[in-house]
């Protein structure tokens, strides 16, 4: 069972490492986290990944709530807290206790930012999420609103209802609403950066530059972190690492 404890009471100094990324949609945070993951795996570390709103147990509720527009600001907040609690107890906390590296794409700060924009009390939110283990490092990908919106709209024919904050009645259409909503979320992040010591990265730099800065900051935390077992029991991986392929008759090796 996950005990809600003061933020610094959960993790021992010698246990896992938790690195998280935050930022508005289109800030490029997921891309950077993915690059960080590849680097860590290549260095031989065991890396556990957890993504916002991805708990299989909570998913059916969230999906129906979103599809049928059943979610008010409070139920939106509560159901995302349920998702986070489920992932914390099933994935994040056990991995950290075991001493592994955990990467999280969005963390409690996403709830603090989005739910506050929806009018949810900030102190209530912080207490609600007080069971969350504090990250070793939290990166905030800072991008100008116009740039983020440009990136998102470039690849998307349609913005979803809650993603655009349409439930807040911020704009006549989803594009206008999306821009205003992201602007408000960005303003909330600006409060969170000093409050929680988030590390601000300039997300308008090149991907390579951003990644280099991330790695420099992560590197000092890696000493003693859990390493991945050599092969995971899969001969294809060994062969892959050696740089050649298995012959046809070995391809169906059971995992």
């Amino acid at each position: 069972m996950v005990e809600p404890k003061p933020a610094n009471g959960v993790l021992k100094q010698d246990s896992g490492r938790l690195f998280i990324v935050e930022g508005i949609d289109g800030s490029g945070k997921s891309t950077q986290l993915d690059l960080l993951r590849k680097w860590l795996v290549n260095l031989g570390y065991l890396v556990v990944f957890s993504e916002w709103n991805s708990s299989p147990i909570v998913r059916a509720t969230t999906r129906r709530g979103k599809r049928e527009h059943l979610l008010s600001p409070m139920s939106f907040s509560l159901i995302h807290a349920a998702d986070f609690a489920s992932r914390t107890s099933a994935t994040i906390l056990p991995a950290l206790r075991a001493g592994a590296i955990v990467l999280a794409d969005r963390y409690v700060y996403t709830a603090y930012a989005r739910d506050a924009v929806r009018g949810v009390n900030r102190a209530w939110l912080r207490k609600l999420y007080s069971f969350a283990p504090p990250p070793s490092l939290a990166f905030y990908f800072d991008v100008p609103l116009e740039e983020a919106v440009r990136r998102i709209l470039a690849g998307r024919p349609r913005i979803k209802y809650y993603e655009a904050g349409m439930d807040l009645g911020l704009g006549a259409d989803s594009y206008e609403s999306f821009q205003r909503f992201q602007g408000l979320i960005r303003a909330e992040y600006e409060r969170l950066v000093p409050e929680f010591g988030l590390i601000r990265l300039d997300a308008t730099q090149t991907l390579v530059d951003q990644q280099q800065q991330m790695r420099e900051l992560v590197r000092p935390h890696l000493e003693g972190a859990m390493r991945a077992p050599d092969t995971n029991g899969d001969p294809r991986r060994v062969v892959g690492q050696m740089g050649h392929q298995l012959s046809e008759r070995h391809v169906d090796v059971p995992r």
Partner: protein
Amino acid sequence: MTALRFYGERPPGINGEELPGRLIVIEGTDGVGRTTHVTLLTEWLEARGYAVVNTGLRRSTLAGREIERAKRGNTLDHMTLNLFYATDFWDRMERQILPALRAGMVALVDRYIFSLMSRAVVRGMPRDWLENLFGFALVPDLVVYLDIDVPHLIPRVLASTGFDYWESGRDYLPGQDVFSSFVEYQSNLLAEFRRLAREHDFVTVDARGSIHEVFRQLCASIEPVLALMARG
């Protein structure tokens, strides 16, 4: 009038100061006779010309089904299950209870946040976290707590459903002895209910008596709350 008062901060999207309806909550452990009395009270109120809405745990459109499923599979940790119940509770607050109160009805609610909090506290969840979480609940006009002791509870439970997995605390208590688990769990639960009853000034009704006796006391405690309320 029901004052729009909440245990904690007022949640977003809730406007107004007063509501013409009444919020009446029946609390108590499983097997104490809550559901029987809610049914009887509904008829009694309707016969007297009040429009009544009933709601109870896990009856929300949003999360009711998932809680049932999760309980069957026993797949959720306590924290997630609590947040699911909170989601279910809030959804019913917004869609059933508040609209009924706005329409001048009596919302007769079978278990409120106190059942949820008691069950969670007994399982080791911190009170202050739970009080913060459930601070979004509207303060009812009346909470009647049906109080019982374990010796009186046992025959009622045996005569109906038997010792249920959750109501015996088997999800967290060690060992295979169902009866011992039931006694331990219910003793702890009742202690927590009584603590809440003192803290929040519930009207406590001794539920060890006959259905008729308990019902008479329930009606007597509800009567003053209905005074000055318009009937249909």
